[in-house]
Each structure stands twice: as structure tokens, then as C-alpha cells.
């Protein structure tokens, strides 16, 4: 067991600056308005740094820098760009522990997750796209013996990216790595709940990139995000967040005729077929962990397995064991490596989760465990903690249909395969799903029937690079985490070339 000292305390391995300006053109630039906003840690509720409050003027400056850098960056060889991405990965690896502590302090998630998942995945992601861009090839079509169509990949130019607060560094990396590999310059707006950890990262890796290739402007959505998303100076916008803002971003994009990629969340079913409980073995143990994955990252994951569907004949048994596993989740100081669940990322997030627990109860769902705010002691008393909560109810209830984005799972039973598929697909969303069965045929058929972009089969919450991630239905547009994301950051240039010396004969 290790308990890391909090940034700002004696012995801390990660220190935040007292104030962050915007990162524009390879240097810190004060906000045009001169205003800053306070940034509290959800671990304690106490402010630990202040951050530039960006406005349209700052976005314009960042776009100026990006447009200045984009032509030269877009002309670099893929070898050069891959080398830069690999150097970023190496630098991050050398500072993994510091970055993990910084990320935990800002977001509230347990350091065991940032050490083992968020930051290692981000490092690997840069390496994956370094490899992918080196291996990418254009194509040729031989139209006839004298006519050839050459297809080249070209960068889009300057792109905008709006990052969510649940995995600030990893989600920034999912967007930055393919955009940079493809040769684009970026203006990136972090979430206002987690504005600083990306700048902590830029302090470490900023010197590896030519000035202006990555620009970070913080601020509130309406003041900084909107001018970025609606700018006529970006060639693409990428957003992870919710549906109303997603629609608004598509609306702005339509006015500028630019492409969008959107990741808008889900209400993921996690399905446990009867044969899961046919033995009490390692697999059964793994399936119980799979159920408990709703508490990973405090449930603040777009693919949180927030609906557990358990086959009727094992319902009581499996749910009983799953409740025991849930009650064993250790809640505490996120900087303690033994802690399994930390703090919700913000006060409004805490309030929203509690409001959902209220409506769940009002609709007649039964609280089997948890069901409220976790009262912590000492420094943590001001933080935002929720006890892992298991509801039992029906799929038509709002707690089964809406993304609570907290450590809350709603459980129901199903009769047979068809019933499971009907419940699983009775949702507006289609981002993730889990299928648990010892029988390959059942698992395969379920995986193909569920309308979701990612179906974890006998596993959950793994996010390796090279496994495409994105949504069906209301969950968005595009696939991240895979080389196909390069296509979302590239134009296709076709040279249609005639090698014939003869005219067509029309004129």
C-alpha cells in the first residue's frame, strides 16, 4: 500500500502551478480578458490552482498559432511525426507516476486506476498511432492501361477538439494522437471541471512539438467551447459529451460544412447468461468482477455497465454474490493505492447522481446496497463521494434509461435469449455492452444482435488501442481508438493521371 502525498503537500511527487495561462504557440499566454477561474480538487473540494478563463479572442489567437504551424507540420514525413509521438510516449512513461498523481488529484479517480489504466493506455495510444501512420499506405486504381487514379492521404489542416472531464488525459490522447499522426494542428479545449492536468502534461511534453501544433485554451463551454466549435477556421470538430451539445456541435458544423466526430455516451447492458453460474471457478469470479465494473472510475464512464441483466434461474444466487462483491469495494482517499473508488469529479455531478437515486426510489426501484452520499472524514469531508449503489427494478424506469454517470447499476432479470436482447436494445444508445457466457455460440449470437459499437465478451472496460470504439444509435459518430480514426482526420487527394499521348476526340 502506498499513499501519495497530495500536490501542494510535503513529499508530493507531482506539483501543479499556482496558475495556468493558455498554451498557445508553444508558450503560456495570459487570457485576453485577464480573468481566471478556480479549480477545486474533488478529493477535498479545495481549490488547488486557477486557470485562464478563455473567450473568443483566445480561441482566435490559438487558431492563428495553429494556422501558422499547420502547413509545415502537415508536410513533415510520417517518420518525423511518428518519432515525435514516440518521444511523447517515452517522456510520459518516464513521468508516469507523477502524471497519474496529478490526474487523480484533479479528477478524483483512484490512483490505482491512473497508474494502471489511464496513463499507460495514453502512452500506448501515442505509440499505436506512431505505428499506424508509418504503416498507412495510399492506393492506386488502374482505370485502364494509360489512366491511373492515385489516392493520397492529406491532413485536414487545423482541427478543434473538445475533451470531457472523466478521463482528461486519456480522452485528450484519443483525439490528439490520430490528429497529430495525420499531420493536423489542433486547438483543444479541456473540460472546465478538469482544465489543469492536460497543461500538467503539456509542461512535460510541450518541447517535443513544434510551436502551434497543439494549442490548449481553457474556459467555459459557452465562452470558449462555442467559439471554437462554431469557428469557420477549423476543418473538423471532435467532441465527447452529451446529446444536446452534440446536436449543437453538428448544427455549427453544418453551417461551416465540416465533419464531426461525436461520442455521446450510452446506457450499456451487462448480460449474464445462466451458464455463468454453472461452476464456482475463476470464470465465475471474473464475471462478478465484470458486474462490479459499474464502479470503475466512479461510474463516470460513457460505457459504464449501468444496466445488469441477469438470467432468471441464476438471478438470486448471482445477484447475492455480486452484492457481496460490491460491498467489498473500498472507498477512500483516491491517492491511496488500496482505494478502489474515489470522488465524483464535481459537486454538480454529485448532486445529479443523488437526484437520480431519488427518482429511482420514487419509481419503485429497490435499493439493494448503497443509495446515498458517502460521508468521509478529515480532509476528504469536503469531497464528492457516492457509495456504490445497486438498484433492482424494470427497464422502463428512468434509472435504466438515462446515463447517471455515477457508481449506480440498475439490475433486472430476463427469461431467455430473446428477452435479453429485447431489453438490451430497448435504449436510445448503443455505445457499449457486456456479454457473459461460457458458451461461444450464445456469446457470439448475443454480441452480433446487440446494437452497440463495442460488445465486451467475457470481459469489460478494456480499452486497448486497435479495438475500434464508438457508438450505434444516439451514441455518436465515428470510431476512436483504431487506425480508422486516421480517416476522420484526413482528406483523400485523388490524382487522376493520363499517360496516354492521344486526345479523347470530343473537341
Amino acid at each position, binding site marked *: 500500500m502506498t499513499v501519495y502525498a497530495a500536490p501542494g503537500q510535503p513529499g508530493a511527487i507531482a506539483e501543479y502551478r499556482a496558475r495556468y495561462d493558455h498554451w498557445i504557440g508553444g508558450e503560456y499566454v495570459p487570457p485576453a480578458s485577464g480573468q481566471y477561474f478556480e479549480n477545486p480538487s474533488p478529493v477535498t473540494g479545495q481549490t488547488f490552482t486557477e486557470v485562464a*478563463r478563455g473567450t473568443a479572442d483566445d480561441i482566435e489567437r490559438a487558431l492563428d498559432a495553429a494556422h501558422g504551424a499547420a502547413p509545415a507540420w502537415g508536410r513533415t514525413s510520417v517518420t518525423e511525426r511518428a518519432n515525435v509521438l514516440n518521444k511523447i510516449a517515452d517522456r510520459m512513461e518516464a513521468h508516469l507516476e507523477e502524471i497519474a498523481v496529478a490526474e487523480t488529484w484533479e479528477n478524483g479517480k483512484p490512483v490505482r486506476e491512473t497508474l494502471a489504466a489511464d496513463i499507460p493506455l495514453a502512452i500506448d495510444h501515442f505509440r499505436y498511432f506512431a505505428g499506424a501512420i508509418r504503416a498507412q499506405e495510399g492506393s492506386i486504381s488502374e482505370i485502364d492501361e494509360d489512366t491511373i487514379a492515385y489516392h493520397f492521404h492529406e491532413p485536414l489542416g487545423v482541427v478543434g477538439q473538445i475533451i*470531457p*472531464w*472523466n478521463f482528461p488525459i486519456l480522452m485528450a490522447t484519443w483525439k490528439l494522437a490520430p490528429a497529430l499522426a495525420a499531420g493536423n494542428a489542433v486547438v483543444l479545449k479541456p*473540460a*472546465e*471541471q478538469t482544465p489543469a492536468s492536460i497543461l500538467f502534461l503539456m509542461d512535460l511534453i510541450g518541447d517535443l512539438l513544434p510551436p502551434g501544433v497543439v494549442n490548449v485554451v481553457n474556459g*467555459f*463551454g*459557452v*465562452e470558449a*467551447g*462555442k467559439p471554437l*466549435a462554431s469557428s469557420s477556421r477549423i476543418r473538423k470538430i471532435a467532441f*465527447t*459529451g*452529451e*446529446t*444536446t*451539445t*452534440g*446536436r*449543437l456541435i453538428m*448544427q455549427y458544423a453544418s453551417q461551416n460544412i465540416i465533419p464531426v466526430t461525436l*461520442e*455521446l*455516451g*450510452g446506457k450499456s447492458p451487462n448480460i449474464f447468461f445462466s451458464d455463468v453460474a454453472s461452476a464456482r471457478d475463476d470464470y465465475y469470479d471474473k464475471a462478478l468482477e465484470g458486474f462490479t465494473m459499474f464502479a470503475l472510475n466512479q461510474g*463516470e464512464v*460513457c460505457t459504464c455497465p449501468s444496466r445488469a441483466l441477469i438470467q432468471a434461474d441464476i438471478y438470486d444466487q448471482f445477484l447475492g454474490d455480486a452484492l457481496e462483491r460490491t460491498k467489498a469495494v473500498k472507498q477512500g482517499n483516491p491517492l491511496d493505492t488500496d482505494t478502489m473508488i474515489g470522488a465524483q469529479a*464535481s*459537486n*454538480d*455531478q454529485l*448532486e*445529479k447522481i443523488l*437526484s*437520480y437515486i*431519488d*427518482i429511482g426510489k*420514487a*419509481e419503485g426501484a429497490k435499493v439493494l446496497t448503497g443509495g446515498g452520499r458517502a460521508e468521509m472524514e478529515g480532509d476528504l469531508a469536503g469531497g464528492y463521494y457516492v457509495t456504490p449503489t445497486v438498484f433492482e427494478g424494470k427497464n*422502463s424506469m*428512468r434509472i435504466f*434509461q*438515462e*446515463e*447517471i*454517470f455515477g457508481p449506480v447499476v440498475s439490475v433486472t432479470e430476463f427469461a431467455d435469449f430473446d428477452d435479453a436482447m429485447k431489453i438490451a436494445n430497448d435504449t*436510445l*444508445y448503443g455505445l457499449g455492452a457486456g456479454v457473459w457466457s461460457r458458451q461461444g455460440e450464445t456469446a457470439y449470437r448475443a454480441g452480433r444482435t446487440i446494437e452497440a459499437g463495442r460488445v465486451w465478451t467475457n470481459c469489460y472496460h478494456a480499452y486497448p488501442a486497435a479495438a475500434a470504439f464508438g457508438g450505434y444509435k*444516439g*451514441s455518436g459518430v465515428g470510431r476512436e481508438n483504431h487506425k480508422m480514426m486516421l480517416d476522420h482526420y484526413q482528406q483523400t487527394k485523388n490524382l487522376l493521371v493520363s499517360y496516354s499521348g492521344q486526345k479523347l476526340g470530343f473537341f
Partner: protein
Amino acid sequence: MTDDTISRVAVTDAAAGLLARLRRQHGELMFHQSGGCCDGSSPMCYPDGDFLLGDADVHLGDLVVTDGPDDAPGATGEEFTVPVWMSRAQFEYWRHTHLTIDVVPGRGSGFSVEAPEGVRFLIRSRLLTDAEWGALD
């Protein structure tokens, strides 16, 4: 709470006061209830007309707010309405519930206009009563 007539939506006094202040800054306002990731399930407040509505949306009702109290700086005392919308598909899952727009301290996100004030609109829900259900559905 302004909840004396049968309606699907209501607003708390605190949220109404905030709406009056925001209206002085941004002009007429509207709500669109979000769903999905991160800040989903939150009501998003925009200058009226900023968010394009269409056949995919349902008008849940109008919040009636008074720009007061009289001693508030800049208050006019006039009554104004804020329409509340939701996507039709989402409404199918929400139609049995009554929604009250409240406000809590927080950071917010999305492009909702209240976030820079350090507060966030929040939906509080209850089941419709039988009388309300009969009148509304």
C-alpha cells in the same frame, strides 16, 4: 415553486432568480434537456433560438418567471416565459415524470449559459400524479 397549474415542468425560486439574471445578459432563453454522457441528463439553457428545434423535439411546457424581486439590480418586474424542450425519443422514457428545474453550485459543461456563474441547472424529477397523468397524457 410555481406549480399551481397542471404542467410537466416547474422551476424553483432559486433557478427562477438565476433565469431572470441570465435573461438580462443573454436575452430570451430556452431549455433543451440533454441525455447521454458526462453532463447528459442536464437541462441545457441557451439564448432562445440558438439551438435548432425540429420534429425530433417535444415542447414540454413553458416556465413562467417574474423578473424580480423589485430590489434586484436591473429587475423589471415583468413576467417572461422560458420554453422547455426534449428530444421526442427521450420523451418516450420520461413522459411519466414531472420535471422541476433547480440550480446547484457546480462547474457545468456543454454550452449552457449559467456555467460561468459557478452554478449548474439540475433536473429534479417526481412521478406525475394520477390527475396530472390524466390531464397531460
